[in-house]
């Protein structure tokens, strides 16, 4: 136990010190935090519950638009803001900016949760590939529809309020870094707390055999919806932060970006190992480093690399890093291995 506390303390100290130690990588580190949040929350569905969704991007994009809209709409007319398309007709004072951001993030977290609850009842009854394709459709539909709504910028995009001129040059990066790191810590604590209760066992039961779980008297639908709502909460939060960080929202390229972010979250969780607490975190970190390498050295070819990466990971590495470690060092994961049994199995192979 004390080893764990030390580990968490080390990570926390590293996280708090990171923007000062690597000042050049602040934006990258903030994006990493957001990616970890997305992968961890995807894992609640895909890993623990066995409901492989492409639709969490819906909550992410919704959170992004809502946060920016609230932040602007609280002080200025929204339609005129998007009309001006990023020209500095309206300027937020620092107080307005931070108040707007706080309110925006709250809305960005709450509304997707409610949306998840409402559509969850209809959609979570689908099984297997029907669910996967349905959520894929939801994500794309949201992107297409939001691209046609005038008040949030339609096709030309939505510029989020620029960071106010306070606290020097580094202030913007540090603000967003600590915001996303805070979201990450919050997500981790929440998910860890959830995973240590009966809730995780119920989700695993749903994954392993939903009909039997139902027969055992578990109200599967209720737990599935709760699980999805938890994901939606943190996805919306992450989206709101990411919107402010990127500074520009486009319906299909930034917010409802099923081709990038929507696949990334699935891929990160699978790369790290589905159904584990640490898997998505490790997966997101490794993936982000790889991705930045690709994006820098193969500029233009990054989607080709991404496509190949998806195929390779899915075919050759479906258990992920944690699964591989578990196979290699089962003792570390608290599994008791009978030496004679293992030898017999090796001989059988």
């Amino acid at each position, binding site marked *: 136990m004390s080893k764990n506390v030390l580990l968490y303390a080390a990570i926390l100290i590293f996280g708090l010190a990171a923007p000062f130690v690597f000042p050049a990588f602040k934006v990258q580190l903030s994006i990493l935090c957001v990616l970890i949040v997305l992968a961890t929350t995807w894992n609640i569905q895909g890993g623990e519950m066995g409901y492989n969704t492409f639709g969490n991007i819906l909550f992410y994009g919704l959170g992004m638009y809502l946060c920016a809209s609230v932040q602007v709409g609280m002080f200025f007319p929204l339609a005129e803001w998007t009309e001006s398309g990023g020209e500095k007709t309206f300027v937020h004072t620092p107080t307005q900016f931070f108040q707007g951001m706080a309110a925006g993030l709250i809305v960005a977290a709450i509304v997707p949760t409610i949306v998840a609850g409402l559509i969850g009842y209809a959609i979570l009854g689908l099984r297997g590939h029907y669910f996967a394709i349905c959520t894929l459709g939801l994500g794309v539909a949201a992107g297409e529809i939001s691209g046609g709504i005038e008040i949030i910028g339609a096709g030309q995009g939505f510029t989020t309020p620029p960071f106010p001129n306070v606290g020097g040059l580094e202030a913007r990066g540090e603000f967003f870094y600590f915001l996303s790191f805070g979201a990450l810590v919050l997500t981790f604590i929440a998910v860890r707390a959830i995973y240590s209760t009966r809730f995780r066992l119920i989700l695993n039961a749903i994954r392993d055999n939903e009909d039997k779980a139902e027969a055992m008297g578990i109200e599967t639908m209720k737990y599935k919806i709760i699980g999805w709502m938890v994901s939606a909460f943190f996805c919306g939060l992450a989206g709101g932060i990411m919107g402010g960080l990127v500074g520009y929202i486009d319906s299909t390229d930034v917010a409802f970006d099923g*081709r990038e972010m929507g696949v990334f979250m699935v891929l990160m969780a699978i790369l790290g190992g589905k159904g584990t607490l640490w898997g998505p975190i490790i997966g997101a970190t490794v993936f982000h480093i790889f991705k930045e390498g690709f994006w820098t050295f193969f500029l233009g070819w990054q989607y080709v690399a991404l496509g190949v990466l*998806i195929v390779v990971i899915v*075919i050759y590495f479906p258990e992920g890093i944690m699964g591989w470690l578990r196979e290699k060092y089962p003792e570390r994961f608290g599994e008791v291995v009978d030496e004679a049994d293992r030898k017999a199995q090796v001989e059988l192979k």
Partner: protein
Amino acid sequence: MDFMVFQYPMITVQACLDGILLGILFALIAYGMALQWGVMNIINIAQGDLVILGGYIAYFMYLYGIHPAWGVIVSPIIMYFVGVGIYKLVINKVVDRDLFISILATFGISILFMQLMNFAFGADVVLANSGYGTTFLFDSAVVLPNSKIFSAFVSIVFAIGLVIYMKKSKLGRAIRATAQNARAAKILGVDTEKVYAATFGLNAALCGVAGALISITFTIHPYMGLPYTIRSFMIVIVAGLGNLPGVAMSGMGLGVFEEFADYILGTEFRIGSVFLLLVLILVYRRFKLSRKREYLK
């Protein structure tokens, strides 16, 4: 919102005819998807990208001065080998795995194809001009490009040809046997690996035909693949696997729906409405099925 549709009956006729001609094309793509779904239990997200690739083959023939209608012959031959290649490289490793793995793997292929096509052919919206002219009906109130009629006709010919081929030929029988019970087929001496490869190749060839027709009739663009995948998936789940008249009917229904959505909601919501319709159909299906389950209890 535009309610001209209800005030001028001729627009309704126009939309219906357009929709039916379009829907026949969709049904052809959906037939390919039903084939591989039924035989290999794989949902191919890259279906639409295969269609677009087939379209580019016809477009390039047009660029080099050959009439694009010949693409209907050439494109499926090339696409057959593309399909077999994809099968040998990727699909044969995911056939007997978890369904989600195959969805994700084909999603990866889809992203790969999209981007490769973007590099190779550029990000412009293109079309191959067939020069077939137009037909005017009802005192020019309804305008039908002849290319649309041509594409619907060719789709029907190919669909009927494939049905006969599946019924009569040796490979067709092997494919149907594998779809019914892969293990029993194996015992009886069917090389299922070859059957799977041929099925995927046939599906790709159908996509090639459809793509060539789409490049003549409409426009193609490297990123336009996913809507075709979703449409064919939707048609298959509405019709059910192995229900060919159903596939044709629901394809036409979808085409008509799209044309009306285009008129009433506006073109910018066209693709969005297709995806929303998919969600609605799936949700409807879920409630219908859950009622059946309760009844069985």
